[in-house]
């Protein structure tokens, strides 16, 4: 789960990472209230999960109430690369002496955490990595040992941060590591981390991705839900707890397992079709899950045929079949189904489908993944 900047800052604040004084606003009046609370000058920042919002006019400085009204009015509702701004963050503007970069993420190849720190902040770290790789200090952290203040200080010194920033930056890095680990982040990034002329160091931006698998131990994440950009199909799938990604094609896809689902997309593409979605019903899916998946696919008007590709392991064939029969009795499907069913209890599943007496033009079985893909693509283009 990717957080908006203001949510990231609220999350940072829970771990005592200093951020600018400010608050979120959904209307111009709310923006003025937040600006008055924070103290002028303020920055009005569009809350969208896409880069380049400054260039698009989504970040503006305001010296007084009239300017806040003008900028918030312009930014709210603005379309930035397809993302409509529904909320702004209004915060006290900071004087900036220098800008740095710091982040924590998992290095999958090393199987350890990776800290990246640079004196060249405020620009995309990929650009720094490309143009001046030596300017990035990288440190692997064994999760068993954690990050000590000494190790953080060593990295700060290695990155050549000026003496005035050393204590402040070290302190924030240790806190950010705590936020990253105890806060179950996949990514915790501050860019820029700023040094003010007064000598204080603080986080001017926040980029946080939370690990959805850790939701069970973070009741506070409930506050972060609900503002993500999803289309209607994706919302419906999220309510049913399905792994769904909307695409633009005409063949609706339901498969079990992420690998097989991706592979199903690939095969449909290879035989000349295009997938309307990625939908993984996961391991051990029961009849209810299958029925829910079909309802989501059925809500997509572009779908001309439905390809159900199941290879049972933990998922049992008879449950899949029951779900299809159940869904077909519950909803009137707009598109015909082509199913390929193999693996655990596939025989029983096929029998259940036969016994249900569903007409051939509504549901047909194919023996292999490729045959089923061809059949589904041909139905979608007829």
């Amino acid at each position, binding site marked *: 789960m990717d957080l908006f900047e203001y949510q990231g800052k609220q999350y940072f604040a829970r771990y005592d990472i200093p951020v600018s004084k400010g608050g979120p606003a959904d209307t111009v009046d709310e923006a003025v209230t937040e600006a008055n609370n924070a103290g002028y000058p303020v920055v009005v920042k569009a809350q969208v999960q896409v880069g380049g919002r400054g260039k698009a006019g989504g970040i503006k400085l305001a010296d007084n109430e009239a300017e806040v009204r003008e900028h918030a009015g312009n930014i709210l509702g603005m379309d930035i690369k397809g993302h409509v701004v529904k909320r702004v963050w209004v915060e006290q503007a900071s004087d900036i002496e220098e800008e740095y970069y710091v982040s924590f993420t*998992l290095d*999958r*190849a090393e*199987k*350890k*955490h990776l800290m990246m720190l640079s004196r060249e902040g405020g620009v995309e770290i*990929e650009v720094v990595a490309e143009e001046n790789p030596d300017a990035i200090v990288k440190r692997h952290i*064994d*999760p*068993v040992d954690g990050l000590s203040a000494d190790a953080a200080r060593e990295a700060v010194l290695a990155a050549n941060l000026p003496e005035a920033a050393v204590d402040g930056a070290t302190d924030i890095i240790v806190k950010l590591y705590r936020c990253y*680990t105890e806060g*179950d982040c*996949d990514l915790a990034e501050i860019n820029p981390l700023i040094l003010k002329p007064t000598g204080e160091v603080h986080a001017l931006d926040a980029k946080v991705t939370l*690990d959805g*698998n*850790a939701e*069970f*131990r973070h009741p506070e994440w409930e506050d972060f839900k609900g503002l993500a950009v999803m289309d209607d199909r994706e919302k419906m799938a999220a309510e049913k707890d399905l*792994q769904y*990604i909307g*695409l633009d094609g005409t063949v609706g896809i339901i*498969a*079990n*397992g*992420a*690998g*097989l*689902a*991706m*592979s199903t*997309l*690939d*095969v*449909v*593409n*290879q035989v000349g079709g295009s*997938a309307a979605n*990625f939908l*993984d019903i*996961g*391991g*051990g899916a029961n009849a209810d899950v299958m029925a829910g998946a079909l309802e989501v696919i059925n809500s997509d008007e572009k779908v001309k045929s439905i390809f159900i590709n199941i*290879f*049972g*392991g*933990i998922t049992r064939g008879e449950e899949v079949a029951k779900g299809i029969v159940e869904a077909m009795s519950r909803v009137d499907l707009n598109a015909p189904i082509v199913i390929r069913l*193999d*693996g*655990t209890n596939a025989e029983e599943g096929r029998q259940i489908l036969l016994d249900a007496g569903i007409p051939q033009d509504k549901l047909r079985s194919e023996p*292999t*993944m*490729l045959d089923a893909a061809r059949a589904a693509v041909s139905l979608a283009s007829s």
Partner: protein
Amino acid sequence: MAIFVDENTKVLVQGLTGGQGKYHGLRNRDYGTQVVGGVTPGKGGQDVDGIPIFNSVAEAVEATGANASFAAVPPKFASGAILEAAEAGIGFVVCITEGIPAQDEATTFNRLVREFPNTRLLGPNCPGIISPGKCNIGITAGEIAELPSADGPNVGIVSRSGTLTYQALYELKQRGIGVSTCVGIGGDPVPGTNFIDCLSEFQNDPETHAIMMLGEIGGSAEEEAADFIQANVTKPMSTYIAGVTAPAGKKMGHAGAIVSGGKGTAQGKMDALAAAGVRVGLNPTEAGELMAEIVAAL
């Protein structure tokens, strides 16, 4: 011969009294696997279909001589279960649990490396391992795996995705090609056992004559495997990488499966493997056909 598990492997099921543990544990036993005990704290002394339950892994090892475990427990308890098995001296732990927080996974992996170097973890979030005719630990339907033939040629399979593992077994069975061992390493960010671990074992296993590898988008495990193959693997290989058509920036179900910043693309992985001499299929069936050609030429 086979890799990691064979007819002498004695398996404990951690969570045998739970739904998944019971269903798959009993299926593993029915396949012929030596399932010698189950572990559920507080239920010691009971049995599941004749299999004795113990309160701890240590007790179970003492009583049964188990040397492998199958951890079928919910995400909250998975790290604890894996470490308990390692502490009791279990040498091979298969964890099928999906949804373990990445922080727990990274910590557990590094603790195993440091404190229990003799324990190998397979998974988490994996389908398990099957050495056909000898041992099946996990959720694979045993009947889709072709038995290895005494004089070969036999194929070793390693895969990052569960259902693609079954698909690969199925493709080989359709063609009557024997399988020495099939390992599902799982799609999580920090797998206990990776492609290279399996490739290295297959290369050294006299019963394995060729290797089929199934990868997917995201991360750099396939690229690292390609480097390893180039330098160390002389047995012929075929591969398929899932996610050729996956859009960038969208997480495709697995925690690991995402193309970000132009890295981890299927094309990049296919190119790296092809450069290492691996024959690349554009779908699982094509990878199976290529393997049939390879085996026919052996």
